[in-house]
């Protein structure tokens, strides 16, 4: 139960103020989810460099978790280039050229992993968009694209690690924000688990992320993966997915969850409600469209 938002800038390249844009869009629909807020942001990549972000909590609990993370990273011969603590999380840039899936499954034993990617960084915590921004300085983030989420917890806990966006556990750089409920969750999860994938939460949004990332890793285009998802996933959903270079959406056949978008020469912006889009264009009447039921679309960054 929530609000979602995403944007991709077409022109300013890595210098677009994606962080600021997502903060205003999510603040605009915070009424849909006051419990927690999260962002999936895509940084510029550096060859051979991976970024990991963990949930570690605070104080001694955090110190202990970080110690474990250091040990695990050493075990995997991931060489630490940069590290930082903010809010309840710890992020680390490492030099790593091994198997990402193996690394991520094993790192989960040290601490709750929010994201791994050459580019992806997931920042999420309790509170509203501005609360999370205050702790993590999302406003300073520049890049081409990102997605975000405000959450009203209905079934799982109100904790930072149960917040969105969800990273596709085991696959680098794929993230998802989702509004709705996947009703064939267990069936789909068992199917993926049989193929060796691990799940870190019991949240249906993590399932969508892993489902899509699996398709991508098999050589599927994002567009094709989204098309398949509408047939394979049962329930109500409007979701946004992002990768290093693309952003896309899919909407179920029942059209039970809202989604509107606006496209200009400069950007594409998608959100649960038009009120979020208008935050980017105050005082302007926008030429928005509501994607019909059972549709999907993707955009690729041009720079």
């Amino acid at each position: 139960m929530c609000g979602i938002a995403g944007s991709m800038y077409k022109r300013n390249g890595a210098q677009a103020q994606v962080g600021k844009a997502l903060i205003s869009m999510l603040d605009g629909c915070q009424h849909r989810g006051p419990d927690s807020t999260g962002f999936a942001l895509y940084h510029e990549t550096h060859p051979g460099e991976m970024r990991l972000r963990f949930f570690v909590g605070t104080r001694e609990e955090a110190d202990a978790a970080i110690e474990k993370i250091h040990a695990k990273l050493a075990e995997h011969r991931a060489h630490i280039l940069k590290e930082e603590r903010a809010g309840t999380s710890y992020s680390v840039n490492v030099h790593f050229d091994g198997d990402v899936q193996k690394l991520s499954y094993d790192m989960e034993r040290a601490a709750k992993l929010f994201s791994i990617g050459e580019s992806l960084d997931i920042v999420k915590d309790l509170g509203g968009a501005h609360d999370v921004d205050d702790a993590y300085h999302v406003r300073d983030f520049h890049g081409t694209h990102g997605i975000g989420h405000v959450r009203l917890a209905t079934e799982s806990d109100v904790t930072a690690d149960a917040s969105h966006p969800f990273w596709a556990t085991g696959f680098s750089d794929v993230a998802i924000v989702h509004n709705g409920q996947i009703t064939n969750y267990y069936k789909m999860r068992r199917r993926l688990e049989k193929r060796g994938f691990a799940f870190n939460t019991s949240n249906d949004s993590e399932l969508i992320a892993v489902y899509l990332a699996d398709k991508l890793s098999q050589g599927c285009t994002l567009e094709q993966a989204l098309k398949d998802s509408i047939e394979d996933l049962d329930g109500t959903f409007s979701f946004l997915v992002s990768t290093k270079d693309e952003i896309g959406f899919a909407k179920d056949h029942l059209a039970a969850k809202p989604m509107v978008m606006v496209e200009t020469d400069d950007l594409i912006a998608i959100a649960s409600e038009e009120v979020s889009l208008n935050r980017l264009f105050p005082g302007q009447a926008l030429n928005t469209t509501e994607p019909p039921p059972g549709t999907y679309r993707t955009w690729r960054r041009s720079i």
Partner: protein
Amino acid sequence: MASIDLAQLPVREANELLRRYGEDGEDVEILNPDARHHIGVGLVHPIQVRIRGSAGYFCAGLTDGPRFEVDANVGWGLADNMLKGSIVVNGNAGAIAGVAIRGAEVVVKGNIGSRAGQVMKEGTLLCCGNANFMAGYMMYGGRIVILGESGAQVGQDMTGGTIYVGGKVNSLGTDAQLIDLPAAERDDLLAFLDRYNISYSGSFQKIVNAGKKLRYPRTEPRVRQGPFFMASGSQSGYWNPKVQEDIFIRSRIGRYRIRGYGASRALPHLTDIAFRKDLSGIQLDRDVVAKVNLKTEVGGRTGAVPLRLSMPVTIAPMSYGALSKSTKIALAIASRLSGVSENTGEGGMSDEQRREADQIIYQCLSGRLGWNIHDMRRANGLEIYISQGAKPGLGGQLMAKKVTKEIARIRGIPEGIDLRSPSRHPDVLGADDLVIKVEEFREATSYRIPVSVKLGAGRVRDDIKIAYKDGFDFVELDGLQGSTGAASHEVLEYVGIPTLAAIQEAMDALAELGATGKMPILLMGGIKDGVDAAKAIALGAHAVALGTGAIIAGGCIACLQCHVGQCVVGIATQDPEHEKRYNVPVEAQNIHRYLESVRWQLAAITHALGHADVHQLSRDDLVALTPEAAAITRLPYAPELREQAPYRKAS
């Protein structure tokens, strides 16, 4: 023309200002709307409102009379429940445009989202572009005109009304059919278009209900084995007179059995809880009512005017429709005499009911039957029904015999159908939509009236947390033992969790949120007297609602035939010949005396347990008599008390 700038003023203040301009008859333009929600909600004056930009959810919702024009787009729920008046949208509209309108003219120049015109009753919804999935879903009357394509499953489960499609009909919904369009009707449509300066020269296809699903093919044969209580709680869950009756009836109709009343199988209940202290001296004090404070306020959590009850008791929601008007009036009178609140149930509020009850809660259901801004404003509490204990997850059922001309008029539906209300609200598909809906109600009533939610006990823990986060003033929580006027046997018996488990889960949920005591719970579902009520309050309920008990006090013989519509005592009927048997003043007094007996029981127990205020009752006053009740409530298990004095026992 006056101006309101939403870049300067929040919507709440803007709407208040708008209503003042409405009283003065001055037209208004709204600047910088920026797709904000609830613009114009609750306006009941025939002024013009021009919105210079896009509006969000529920634009012009719960209104009567104004004429709106929106320069750009609108979000979900355009013109929700608009009575008279009109709105022209120059851009696109989101999902459920024209939901539940009752006479309004709604014109969208662009496209409309899915489920347009859901549960509309009267008026016109015109879309100049394309419609989307399930336009006209569950509509009861009025007309939808689509100049472009219809979208898939147009007219899905429509009961009444007409849909005209200029472009392609992508696919027809269940029980919808295409029929010929008479020339006069086409002229009517063109005249309507002309009034809004829309030129159109194409043809129309006409879609109406095919009439295959409006009535059950066979109705339940009537049997009178004995009253409900011969079956309920029977020691044999396998074979008993009720099981025999169920099989007999199903052998005649070949489907699920519909009947009145609630779950009849034995379930853990408040009767499995006892008071820890010996109350054997309880009868001695005749003035005990004067010695204990029973006064209870409900619903002031967000600053609204709370219900002020003389004791922690209310009348449970029961509709005019399921019950006769006479019964509803008797309940209203009794509620006034005893200083408690009445509840409209599903079918709208009658003037007589409003007049007789001092305090009344107005219930809003998925079909929006009898729902309107004027009755909202004269209510003392509003209630969004999500589900009820007797049939969680389903809407109400009112069999054809009871859907008389009068009932059909109030509810805005065709006469003589087997009315099966929608199972979910058009505009509440999740907690996130619900919060916007609650805000719409608050806007429409100037934040003056408490807004509550009624939940059938299922996933209580999750639901209570959602209710708290969505800012409800209180919750009406209804357990599996709740009764109803008509529902299927399977759902009555097997769906939901018992009332005892429901209150425990609700308390746990609030405790987990750190919100113990912050959101009152009105518990209902098999609460039959003041003894049950005292136990419910000790377990954490703030008050209780009595339904079945009040009806029985007022003459019900519990024959289970409520759905038939020919109630022999004039309660569950709309037939004037049957209703004549109901003596309103006498039954009002009977119900009043019953309520007073509940008051005495509550006072006597509170006093005997050593408290001065009924709200001092707590879990410390209780023990569980059965292992099941102990497991559910985590109260101390005291089997040794099972055989002791009756007041110490259940009741």
